[in-house]
């Protein structure tokens, strides 16, 4: 497709299990962003990639969170030993590099930790 694709769209997991969320950005977009959105809240910035590089990982909530991007395209966000407070919608966005460029968002992955 032409847009940002995220999978799975919904994920229910048991507390303590690991989960992997996937983002397929728009082809040619060098910047890729991960955000977390709790119910009724705004967007919490997690991490961004310029190509395959993530210059600043300080937005990740804890060391249980990690992200990688390979080939300047697909990115995965991994949450280890999930906790109930990790439940949220995880949104991915991609854009061309630059200040005023538009960020295109996927529909998100709704993660529920039970």
């Amino acid at each position: 497709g032409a847009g940002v694709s995220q999978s799975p769209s919904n994920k229910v997991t048991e507390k303590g299990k690991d989960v992997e969320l996937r983002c397929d950005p728009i082809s040619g977009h060098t910047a890729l962003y991960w955000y977390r959105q709790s119910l009724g809240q705004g967007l919490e910035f997690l991490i961004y990639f310029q190509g395959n590089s993530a210059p600043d990982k300080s937005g990740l909530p804890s060391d249980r969170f990690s992200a990688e991007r390979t080939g300047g395209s697909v990115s995965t966000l991994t949450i280890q030993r999930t906790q109930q407070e990790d439940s949220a919608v995880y949104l991915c966005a991609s854009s061309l590099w630059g200040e005023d460029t538009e960020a295109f968002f996927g529909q998100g992955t709704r993660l529920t930790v039970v």
Partner: protein
Amino acid sequence: TQLLEQSPQFLSIQEGENLTVYCNSSSVFSSLQWYRQEPGEGPVLLVTVVTGGEVKKLKRLTFQFGDARKDSSLHITAAQPGDTGLYLCAVNYPSGGGADGLTFGKGTHLIIQP
């Protein structure tokens, strides 16, 4: 401290009324974006403002960037139920190139009642 403060947090008005929502910061930005998010979807870009004092119109929506480039407002004339959604402002840091990621305010939840 939030980089971007949006107000009001929640707003519910009747169809046909006018409204203004605000995005404020103590920092100066080279540009600012407004996004709208509908339930179950990712945010979608409405407009980018780049010049202090700039006013942009998008049908019934009027966006203004403050002269000092620290704040912005969104005015909706004759609101319609289809305007319902979460309105988010977003900026890149002045360092440019999206170096610190596209940062969002917490948003204004707008409900237009028929």
